[in-house]
Each structure stands twice: as structure tokens, then as C-alpha cells.
């Protein structure tokens, strides 16, 4: 029983080979100090009984990129006894650079010339024996779609003696590295000249497609269409299944648990803890399954088809205006549906700085759960032009997102920018099978790691709620909301906002149930004094304040509790200040409150600025250097 690591360039089909060798069964683990998921599988084949660890797709082994650093640190740790290097046969010249670096590290290694069938179709003739001779390492040709190649690869692996060796790392001095790179590429050129006969020009077909996809005029519209499709498939179609999961998991873990406990005659507090508490936690977790699965399924399809790179290529310039790379568009877009998968999608951003910035901005993309609140208030208070009110809220959210991005870009992240340097692979037919495996893996990682935080947190909140703690908290804090137009009698609104931390949909149901408990004839309209201004101020607050606890938990996993606390307080303070300024300006008339709101806002922004200047100096501002230290 030993450990094999699998390494290769992005787009080399490494994950297909991983799936081929492990049969698609994967476990998720941890890379020390980072939030990137570690994928592990098992290989059982005649004489090979090993764990297979998937290293991130990398081009080299330098310390300047997070993914490469993960690979470096992992190989230095000597956990791996053997290395499989997956190489794209249609792109040999550049792929072999990593091969040479890995070879120099000294670990027993096998080179797999992947996509060999595609290379043959393209007329590329590769002399495998010659490459083996020049590399001095066993080489085997394979295609991830040929099941029989699994045996072929593993038979070659079986012939290599696994061994833990002390690793030699490539130099990190830039002049030494330049010389090393030149030498390696010279050797690669020799191999290309002696062992490889070039095929047809492969980009003809891709270029034809790109003529439309990255065209000056059609590039953006096609991108928007693709994003609309992604959104519709994920939120629209995937969203259809939310109720299904909610019902089933509710039936099993809440009602089912209650039934069992009743039969067993258990005390009521146990009922509350297990059924209302943990049961609700599990049920809430399950409501995210369909969207997470569909989102990552379609992201995988977009990536493997090669379109994702084009999308980033088209959008980069625009996104950089708010300080984010082109790829960040997808998490932002998904944020309009649900913040939880949006936070998870920030994974694809290689740079921590980009992920933190995204986490700050994403909540301003008003999520789907807030929409029912807007709609009900719009219908109640703005019978004419209600749609415009809702639209205005979304626009305000987007504007604030852009402003926040600019603010962060010019203060905290001044001068730092992540790399764009990106390969544009050939267009390929995406594999539904691999996309499914990839989506299931993400889902599994969400359940295992996200669930660990989400379930207990929601359980605690649900328990507190059922004993009336949330209601008490809402009533106690109600005075704070007076400036935004919630009168003393309207304390249910304050409580509803608290329940909104649970889930934004809970706001309206909470309002309705609390108003109906009142003896007087109270409804939303009367409670807000029939005031359009108060209603809109309330909606402004709902738009901006803290995201739901599920989103908060998900973001803690992505960027750590420090940044999350900052984001939550920033957006809540922003919401309170803006709502106060709006209400007081148009109705309340209290200059004191207006001045207070501005002061609070200015103070807070200034405070954030100061903290970042002192604390965030280097770790956040560094371009690509990201390691354990920068993870606060």
C-alpha cells in the first residue's frame, strides 16, 4: 500500500486519467494551510494497491503560484512514493517542461501521453521509445476514454519501484531559473525534432469558433448569452429541486426524528435539540444540494469545452475595473441566485486576494431569497411601479458592489493584481461523465466540510429560536432600527430581520406570524405606518445587511473568519447607514440621525482602511505569493 501522486498541466486531461484509474470514487482531504480541496482516490489493480493523490494542474514547480506551491510542499513532504505525469500529446512541447522539472526532483515516475488518440487523428506521430530514451523514464501512451488503457497504465506503474526519496527542488533565483528553463526547452526541442512528427495545424477549427466567440462585436453578447444559460440552468432548473430535498430531508430528519423520539418517550428538550435543531440543520444543508450540483456540473462542462478561457479572455478588461479578474464573473452572477454556491465558485480564482474581494462583493448581488421580501413590500406599498422598485434595489446592489470593489482596489489592494497569463486550449467536446464526477466531488466536499460548520450553527440558531431567544434579541435590538423607520410598535420587523440571518425567506413568514399574533388589526401596511419611505428604507436594509448564516458559514470556509466578520459588519453598517439616511432625508427629518449615519459610515470605512494598512500590508498585497501565513 503506497501513495501515488498525479501531476500535469491544466487542460492535459489529468482529471480524466484520475477518474479512469480510480473508477470515479474520490475522497476529499486537506492541503495544509489552504482552502483548496485535496482529491484522493484508491487504485486496486493486480499488483498495484495504492492511494492516488490529485495535485492541482500546474505548469511548473515554483513558489510563486499557490497551486504550484501546494504541489511543491506536497512532494517535499515525501508522502508520495511514485509520480504519474499526465502529458497532453497534442501539446507536447510545453507539457514536457513540467515533465523535466518533475524528473529532476528524483521521484520514481511514469509519463502518460494522454489524448494519444486525438494526437493520432491530428496526424501527430510520436516515437515513444525515442522519448523514453531521451527522458530516461518509462512512457506509456493512453486515452482516458479507452477503459483498457487503465490496465495499460497500471501495468507500467507496477513495473516501477515506489520509493520515498529526498526531493531536489528547482532554483528560485530568477537568473538561475532562466538558465534552467532555457536548457530544458533546448532538450525538449531535441525531443520534438527527433521523436515527434507534427500534425495538422490544430487551431483551424478552434479559430473558426473564436471568430465569433472572441469577436469584437459578438464576443460580449455571446458571453452574456452563455451566462444567462448558466444561470437559468443552475438557479432555474436546479432550483426546481430545492423543495424536493427540503421535503424529503424534513420528513426524515425533522418529522421522522420527532416520531421516533415520541415513541421512545423522550423528553421534549431532546426533541428540540435533535429534531428542531440538528434536523433543521441537515434539512437546510440539503436545500443547497441541487444548485451546487448543477452549478459545478455546468462549470465543468464550460471548462472542459474550452469556453471558460474565452469567457475570461473577453471579460477581463471589464472586470479589472472593479479589481477582479475575468473569471470572477461567474461567482458574481451566481450570487444573484444564491450566495452559497457563489462563494463556493470563488474557488476557481487562483489568487486569495481575488477570492477575498469576491466574497466582499458577492453579497451585494441580491440573492434569490431576498426577492420574496421585495415583492411583497412592493405589492403592498407600491401598487403602481412595484417592479421598478425591485429593479432599483438590484441596481443599487450592483452599484454598491462596484463602489466596494473600487474602494478595496484603491486602498487595501492598491497595486496588487493577480496574474492573467492563461492558456487558450483547443475547443474540445466536454465529457458529461467527468463533469458529473467533478460535480459530485464538489457536493461531497460541501457536505463533509461545509456541513461540519453549517449543521451545528443552524442547529444552535433553530434551538434558540424555538425557545424564544431570537425573538427576545429582536425586541431588545429594535431601538437600533428606529432611525431607519421602524417604529417602537413595529418590533416584529426587528425580529424578522433577525430571523433573516437564518434564511432571508424567513423575513416575510416571520413578519406575518408575528403581526397575526397581535390583538390589534396589524398587517405590514399599518405596521410601517403606511409609509412608502419606511418600506423602502426597510428594503434597503434587507438588500444590504448580513447574508444568511449558510452563506456566512460557506464564506468562512473560503476566506477565514476574519474577512467574513469584516464583510458582515461592513455590509450591515452600510445597510443601516444608507437606510437611515434615506428614511430621515425623506420622512424622518432628523438631521441628527443623518449626521450620525454619515459619521458611522465614515468611521467604519476609515477603521477598515486603517486595519488593512497596518495588518494587511504585505500578505494581502503580494501578487502571487500565497502560503500558510497569508491565510488569516
Amino acid at each position: 500500500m503506497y501513495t501515488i501522486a498525479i501531476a500535469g498541466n491544466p487542460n492535459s486531461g489529468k482529471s480524466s486519467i484520475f477518474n479512469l484509474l480510480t473508477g470515479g470514487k474520490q475522497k476529499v482531504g486537506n492541503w495544509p494551510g489552504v482552502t483548496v480541496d485535496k482529491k484522493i482516490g484508491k487504485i486496486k489493480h493486480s499488483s498495484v494497491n495504492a492511494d492516488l493523490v490529485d495535485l492541482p494542474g500546474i505548469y511548473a514547480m515554483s513558489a510563486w503560484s499557490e497551486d504550484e506551491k501546494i504541489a511543491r510542499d506536497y512532494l517535499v513532504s515525501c508522502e508520495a512514493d511514485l509520480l504519474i505525469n499526465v502529458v497532453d500529446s497534442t501539446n507536447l512541447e510545453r507539457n514536457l517542461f513540467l515533465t523535466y522539472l518533475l524528473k529532476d526532483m528524483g521521484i520514481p515516475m511514469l509519463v502518460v501521453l494522454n489524448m494519444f488518440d486525438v494526437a493520432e487523428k491530428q496526424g501527430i506521430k510520436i516515437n515513444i521509445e525515442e522519448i523514453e530514451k531521451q527522458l530516461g523514464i518509462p512512457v506509456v501512451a493512453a486515452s482516458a476514454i479507452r477503459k483498457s488503457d487503465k490496465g495499460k497504465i497500471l501495468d507500467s506503474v507496477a513495473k516501477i519501484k515506489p520509493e520515498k526519496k529526498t526531493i531536489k527542488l528547482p532554483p528560485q533565483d530568477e537568473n538561475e531559473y532562466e538558465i534552467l528553463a532555457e536548457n530544458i526547452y533546448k532538450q525538449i526541442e531535441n525531443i520534438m525534432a527527433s521523436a515527434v512528427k507534427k500534425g495538422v495545424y490544430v487551431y483551424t477549427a478552434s479559430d473558426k469558433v473564436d471568430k465569433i466567440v472572441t469577436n469584437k462585436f459578438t464576443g460580449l453578447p455571446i458571453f452574456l448569452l452563455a451566462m444567462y444559460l448558466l444561470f437559468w440552468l443552475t438557479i432555474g432548473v436546479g432550483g426546481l429541486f430545492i423543495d424536493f430535498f427540503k421535503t424529503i430531508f424534513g420528513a426524515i430528519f425533522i418529522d421522522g426524528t420527532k416520531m421516533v423520539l415520541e415513541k421512545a418517550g423522550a423528553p421534549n428538550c431532546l426533541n428540540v435539540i435533535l429534531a428542531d435543531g440538528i434536523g433543521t440543520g441537515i434539512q437546510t444543508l440539503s436545500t443547497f444540494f441541487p444548485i451546487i450540483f448543477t452549478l459545478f456540473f455546468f462549470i465543468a462542462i464550460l471548462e472542459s469545452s474550452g469556453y471558460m478561457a474565452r469567457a475570461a479572455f473577453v471579460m477581463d478588461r471589464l472586470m479589472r475595473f472593479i479589481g477582479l479578474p475575468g473569471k470572477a464573473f461567474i461567482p458574481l452572477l451566481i450570487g444573484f441566485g444564491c450566495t452559497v454556491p457563489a462563494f463556493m465558485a470563488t474557488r476557481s480564482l487562483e489568487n486569495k486576494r481575488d477570492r477575498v474581494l469576491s466574497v466582499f462583493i458577492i453579497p451585494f448581488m441580491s440573492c434569490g431569497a431576498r426577492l420574496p421580501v421585495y415583492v411583497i413590500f412592493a405589492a403592498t406599498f407600491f401598487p403602481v411601479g412595484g417592479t421598478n422598485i425591485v429593479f432599483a434595489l438590484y441596481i443599487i446592489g450592483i452599484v454598491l458592489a462596484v463602489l466596494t470593489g473600487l474602494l478595496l482596489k484603491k486602498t487595501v489592494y492598491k497595486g496588487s493584481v493577480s496574474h492573467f497569463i492563461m492558456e487558450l486550449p483547443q475547443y474540445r467536446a466536454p465529457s458529461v461523465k467527468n463533469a458529473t464526477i467533478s460535480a459530485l466531488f464538489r457536493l461531497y466536499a460541501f457536505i463533509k466540510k461545509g456541513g461540519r460548520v453549517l449543521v451545528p450553527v443552524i442547529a444552535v440558531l433553530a434551538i434558540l429560536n424555538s425557545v424564544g431567544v431570537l425573538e427576545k434579541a429582536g425586541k431588545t435590538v429594535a431601538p437600533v432600527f428606529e432611525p431607519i423607520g421602524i417604529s417602537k410598535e413595529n418590533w416584529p420587523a426587528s425580529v424578522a430581520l433577525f430571523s433573516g440571518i437564518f434564511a432571508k425567506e424567513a423575513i416575510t413568514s416571520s413578519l406575518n406570524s408575528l403581526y397575526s399574533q397581535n390583538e390589534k388589526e396589524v398587517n405590514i401596511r399599518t405596521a410601517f405606518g403606511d409609509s412608502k419611505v419606511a418600506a423602502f428604507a426597510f428594503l434597503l436594509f434587507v438588500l444590504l445587511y448580513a447574508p444568511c448564516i449558510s452563506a456566512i458559514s460557506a464564506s468562512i470556509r473560503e476566506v477565514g473568519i476574519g474577512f467574513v466578520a469584516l464583510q458582515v459588519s461592513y455590509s450591515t453598517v452600510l445597510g443601516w447607514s444608507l437606510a437611515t439616511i434615506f428614511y430621515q432625508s425623506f420622512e424622518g427629518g432628523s438631521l441628527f440621525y443623518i449626521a450620525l449615519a454619515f459619521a458611522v459610515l465614515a468611521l467604519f470605512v476609515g477603521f477598515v482602511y486603517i486595519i488593512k494598512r497596518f495588518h494587511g500590508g504585505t500578505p494581502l498585497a503580494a501578487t502571487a505569493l500565497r502560503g500558510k501565513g497569508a491565510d488569516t
Partner: protein
Amino acid sequence: MHSCVQNAMLHLKPGEKAVVEQYASNADKAYKFKLLSLGLTKGTEFKMIKTSPFGDPIEIELRGYRLSLRRHEAEAILCTQ
């Protein structure tokens, strides 16, 4: 043969070729490592393919594959046509 010019890459028109001369002395270390690893070593020939609809980034072809980089990143490389 034109002389070695910074930002020469940025002046290339689609279809034009150039050869990497050297790296700018103030080239960011991280960029340099990445570009070297990707094959942009001294003497490497590459071809300009296109620019993004918004003018940035640009796409070049080298060693049989396509690479895109921002104009600002391309400044790290000095080349001749």
C-alpha cells in the same frame, strides 16, 4: 531586423511574428517565472494572433499552443521582429 524595443509585443499586428530577446530588468519575478515556464525563453519565436474585444488581453501563439496575457504582463518581455 528592428531593434530591441520594449512593448514591441504590444505593437504587433495579428499574424506578425517576433522573437524573445530578453526580459525587462524591472520585470516582476512572479511573472518572469511563469512566462519562462510557459516557454517564453530567449530566442523563442511567437506569433501575434489577436486582441480581446476590449483591447486587453492579447493572444499569442508559441511552441504549438495559444497563450493570452495582459498588455501590462507582456511588457516584461523585450522582443525583436
